[in-house]
């Protein structure tokens, strides 16, 4: 495995848009004065020696080391069954790992987080699933407001009619960001696949997450809509200063919308390096080599 530490490789637009970004700003200091070394961005996900084996003895992955920093957009790639989704779920505590140590958003745990850790983690993470997981018979607005569930005092978030006024306004704002404000009243099961996935993104964004996790967000969409969804993801993560980690088996999506690519192959990290240093041949090696 080749591992290249990646720090602060987010696009200028992504970092620049974030208030209080890590770029030093010392206009009074002349060019002869050596600028202080830039501090590394805070760690969002760290994993050491992570392994996962299913109860039937089938090994999914082993020896996985990862260090994902704030503001990065990381694509987790690999062929079907490579363990991308399982790794993603282990990293955020939704699935227990078999061995290794994980530190996600400051919560350090072996195998699985405690109940309290999981609650704290969930409050800081936004999720987008391949199948969007919207409640079909509810309105788009209700689905977005339901993104608040699990946060403190959120019991009123199960329907927009009960939700606080500021949540309703916040939901309309994120719907506008995904260009669906005009569909707030529509039922979710009347949306196209791309629109439904945009609602799922809005539902994740309303949580104001530090980390956005997306599991094959464009897998069930046609190519043009899939690119649109990935572009929205990438732009909004940058604008909101959210660390984005997504799984994909689409090489182009990984190359176009990430700062860093982690490739899984045969249960190991095949390579982990900045996207700019990944060649199409490297990508071919992941899927066919």
């Amino acid at each position, binding site marked *: 495995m080749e591992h290249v530490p990646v720090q602060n490789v987010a696009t200028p637009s992504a970092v620049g848009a974030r208030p209080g970004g890590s770029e030093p700003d010392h206009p009074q200091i002349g060019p002869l004065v050596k600028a202080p070394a830039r501090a590394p961005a805070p760690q969002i996900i760290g994993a050491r020696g992570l392994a996962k084996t299913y109860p039937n003895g089938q090994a999914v992955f082993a020896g996985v080391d990862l260090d994902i920093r704030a503001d990065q957009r990381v694509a987790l790639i690999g062929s079907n069954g490579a363990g991308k989704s399982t790794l993603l779920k282990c990293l955020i505590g939704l699935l227990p790992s078999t061995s290794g140590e994980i530190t996600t958003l400051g919560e350090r745990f072996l195998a699985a987080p405690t109940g309290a850790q999981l609650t704290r983690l969930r409050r800081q993470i936004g999720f987008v*699933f391949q199948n969007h997981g919207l409640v079909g*018979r509810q309105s788009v607005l209700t689905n977005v407001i339901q993104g608040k569930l699990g946060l403190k005092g*959120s*019991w009123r*978030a199960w*329907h927009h009619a009960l939700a606080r006024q500021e949540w309703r306004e916040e939901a309309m704002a994120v719907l506008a960001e995904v260009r669906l404000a005009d569909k707030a009243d529509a039922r979710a099961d009347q949306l196209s696949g791309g629109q439904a996935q945009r609602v799922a993104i809005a539902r994740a964004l309303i949580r104001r997450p530090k980390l956005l996790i997306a599991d094959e967000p464009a897998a069930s969409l046609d190519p043009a809509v899939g690119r649109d969804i990935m572009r929205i993801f990438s732009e909004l993560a940058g604008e909101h200063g959210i660390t984005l980690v997504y799984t994909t088996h689409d090489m182009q999506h990984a190359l176009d919308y990430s700062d860093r690519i982690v490739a899984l192959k045969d249960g190991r990290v095949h390579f982990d390096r900045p996207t700019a240093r990944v060649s199409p041949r490297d990508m071919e090696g992941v899927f066919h080599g």
Partner: protein
Amino acid sequence: MASTTSPDTASPAIARTLPPPRLPSISPISFTLIVVVAALFLASMGQVAPSPEKLANGLPRMAELVGRMLPPNTDPGFLQRMGWRILETLQIALVGTVFGVIISLPMGWLTARGISPLGALRHFPRALVSLFRTVPDLVWALLFVSTLGIGAVAGTMTIVVDTVGFCGRFFAEAMEEADKKPQEALHAIGANRVTVLCGAILPDVMPTLINSSLFALEKAVRSSVVLGLVGAGGIGQELKVAFDLFQYRNASAIILAIFVIVLAMEFLTDRLRAKFQ
């Protein structure tokens, strides 16, 4: 013997496959079971089925009874009394069904496999729902008349129990079949079981819940009509009095009213079901 090749017709070039047998083969156990059920049916026929001569003797008596029932009583005083009894019947059905549906929602949730917060303990409320369902409503009515006294309250309680037995099961089954993906999405962000129920499960199964509730209302109207026969209020009580006092013209008017009520209720619930699909 799904597909075999006939040696007579098969050619070296094209192998011909025989069609499957016309009738499926039957195992010895299945054959024995069919014979036993048929024997039981024939034996029961001899015991309880009406003989042709019995039917022939009964028909003139039936005709005589129908003759004494006609024309139905249309005396304004009687019709007014019957109107109040019909209203009471509908009240028993409506109040009993609404309370029954309200109780069935948590019962359905507590007993639904994979959703219930009780885990293996869900079998206890499930057994209770089964008990409510399997004991006939007239037996419940007798129990409530004995404990709460004669009248509409006993009828209402009977409908509540009957509705919980009916809706509790159907609500649980609907919740078990609800789309799992939204539930997983809400669980992943830390929503608790109650909010997943309210936010994802109930909206998804709402048409089924409404459908089952309307069937329960229809069933409750039919039940509440006969509950009066054992003293649990409603129009049935009036019907029993009419037969006991040989007031057959009153009885025919009541039977006609029951027919109209049940028909109207079926029409109404059909329309509502179509609306909520």
